[in-house]
């Protein structure tokens, strides 16, 4: 048994270690050390909690058993998961944090005296508000993340599900939750508490179904943020500094990532969240460009062009992840480097299904991170580059975003791929990308379309190099 003051001090240390864990991510060199800080913070928190509860009876054994059980499952998943599945893994993990927050809130509601929050039927007002907010946000995080997980995993279609009056229903549900929390504070009935949890589950589902697959980077970041706010809500209930600090860190981290992702698409947060992008414009735009001439080539043409280039920029996108083409790509780059070609990679902020998705895949394929550049760093280099190799990206290269104010993607920052001397565009067909619009790049004189699966095409190029 240790005093409340001493344990509060240790929780503060945990909080600081968590801050250092995030701080470490400012560069790949310090990041691994940062992760150890995070682990240390977690161990301190758990040990201090055991000591401050001071109950080492049979319950303690069960806690250890369940801790080991969960830990083994987590470790198993962490080692087995392929890097391409990282977006759905993160979504799945968010759902667990959300559900854990709900369970802790339920437990605190059922047995407030264990947490020092009053007694059943007479819980402290502030605690009641905090725990019901924690439960509501946790529940939204849980069910929303499950939907995101299903969409990313492909179990559920990535297409937006929209229906009339959707946003009004969501608004209504949101207001109902707030009203019920108010009502709960006055009569403290457990039925109301359960209703809050259930309505929040439903709200979470309804919030995420209208959002399409390629908007998932925003959704994952947003759910990341929610899981933080849920943790903070529980932190206030438990009067625990480590949880409050962590909740605030995670909450703001997710919010910033959502902001970066929205900016990468030049869309407002609400535009993304209210969903349904691309669903309306598809019909009007699709038929315009049917007759334009397209130059297409094969792997030998591509190999010839790149071998004789002095610099090549690779533009990967979600299609590379789908085709698992990152390793083949790396082989191609190695072959090019042997021929004295300078190769770099250009990553758009919203390439892939989550922030930093492409970077992880390239790192997995042993691409050194100092060859990989962000949009602002590399965009001027396209003008001086001989070949741009676009693999699995589409909308983020569309020059229409710069020229046509009518286009739904107008104003979105795009990679200036068309400025390079020639563009190799690996794609299975001329179908439009997620935004539902045709890519002007396909019809440019300096574009050579390579119609094939990203991985197969890249492998063939390696052979002919």
């Amino acid at each position, binding site marked *: 048994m240790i005093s409340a003051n001493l344990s509060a001090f240790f929780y503060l240390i945990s909080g600081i270690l968590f801050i250092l864990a995030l701080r470490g991510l400012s560069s790949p060199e310090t990041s691994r050390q940062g992760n150890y800080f995070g682990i240390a913070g977690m161990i301190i928190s758990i040990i201090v909690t055991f000591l401050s509860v001071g109950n080492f009876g049979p319950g303690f054994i069960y806690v250890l058993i369940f801790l080991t059980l969960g830990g083994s499952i987590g470790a198993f998943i962490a080692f087995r998961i392929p890097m391409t599945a990282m977006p759905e893994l993160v979504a799945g*993990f968010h759902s667990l944090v959300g559900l854990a927050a709900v369970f*802790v809130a339920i*437990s605190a509601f059922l*047995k407030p005296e264990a947490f020092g929050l009053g007694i059943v039927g007479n819980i402290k007002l502030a605690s009641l508000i905090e725990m019901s907010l924690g439960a509501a946000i946790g529940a939204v995080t849980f069910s929303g993340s499950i939907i995101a997980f299903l969409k990313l995993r492909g179990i559920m279609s990535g297409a937006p599900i929209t229906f009339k009056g959707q946003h009004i229903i969501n608004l209504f549900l949101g207001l109902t939750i707030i009203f019920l929390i108010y009502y709960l504070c006055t009569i403290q009935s457990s039925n109301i508490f359960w209703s809050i949890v259930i309505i929040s589950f439903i709200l979470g589902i309804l919030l995420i179904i209208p959002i399409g697959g390629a908007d998932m980077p925003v959704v994952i970041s947003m759910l990341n943020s929610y899981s933080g706010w849920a943790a903070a809500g529980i932190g206030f209930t438990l009067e625990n500094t480590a*949880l409050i600090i962590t909740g605030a860190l995670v909450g703001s981290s997710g919010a910033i990532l959502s902001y970066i992702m929205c900016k990468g698409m030049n869309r407002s947060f609400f535009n993304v969240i209210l969903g349904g992008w691309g669903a309306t414009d598809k019909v009007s735009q699709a038929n315009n460009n049917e007759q334009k001439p397209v130059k297409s080539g094969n792997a030998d043409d591509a190999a010839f062009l790149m071998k004789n280039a002095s610099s090549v920029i690779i533009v990967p996108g979600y299609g590379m992840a789908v085709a698992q083409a990152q390793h083949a790509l790396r082989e191609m780059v190695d072959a090019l480097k042997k021929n004295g070609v300078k190769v770099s990679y250009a990553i758009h902020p919203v390439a892939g299904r989550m922030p930093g998705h492409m970077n992880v895949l390239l*790192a997995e394929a042993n691409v050194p991170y100092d060859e990989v550049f962000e949009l602002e760093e590399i965009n001027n280099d396209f003008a001086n580059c001989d070949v741009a190799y676009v693999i699995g990206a589409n909308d983020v290269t569309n020059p229409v975003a710069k020229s046509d104010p009518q286009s739904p993607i107008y104003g979105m920052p795009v990679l200036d791929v068309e400025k390079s001397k020639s563009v190799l565009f690996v794609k299975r067909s001329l179908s439009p990308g997620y935004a539902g619009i045709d890519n002007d790049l396909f019809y440019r004189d300096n574009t050579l379309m390579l119609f094939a699966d990203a991985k197969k095409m890249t492998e063939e190029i390696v052979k002919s190099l």
Partner: protein
Amino acid sequence: MEIDPFIFRLSIFILSIFVGYYVVWSVTPSLHTPLMSVTNAISSVIIVGAIIAALAGAKQNIFETSNIFGFLAIILAAVNIFGGFLVTQRMLQMYKKKKK
């Protein structure tokens, strides 16, 4: 007049949001995926609440409803803690500099 301890916690909360804001902006974009997995791991410090819930008043009957919710939350949070930190570690191991 005494200040309600809630105000102190609120102060910690708000200051932490600011710390988070500046720290996260300094994270390099190439590490945004590990950032998400590590924030996910640290938010599982909610296990603190789960442990308290699981051990609450557990002298006579350790499987009251509130305890069971605590135990369930421990499993969920533990999956996240181990999964989150290990997968972050696995990712960070892959980031290498160019060989000179």
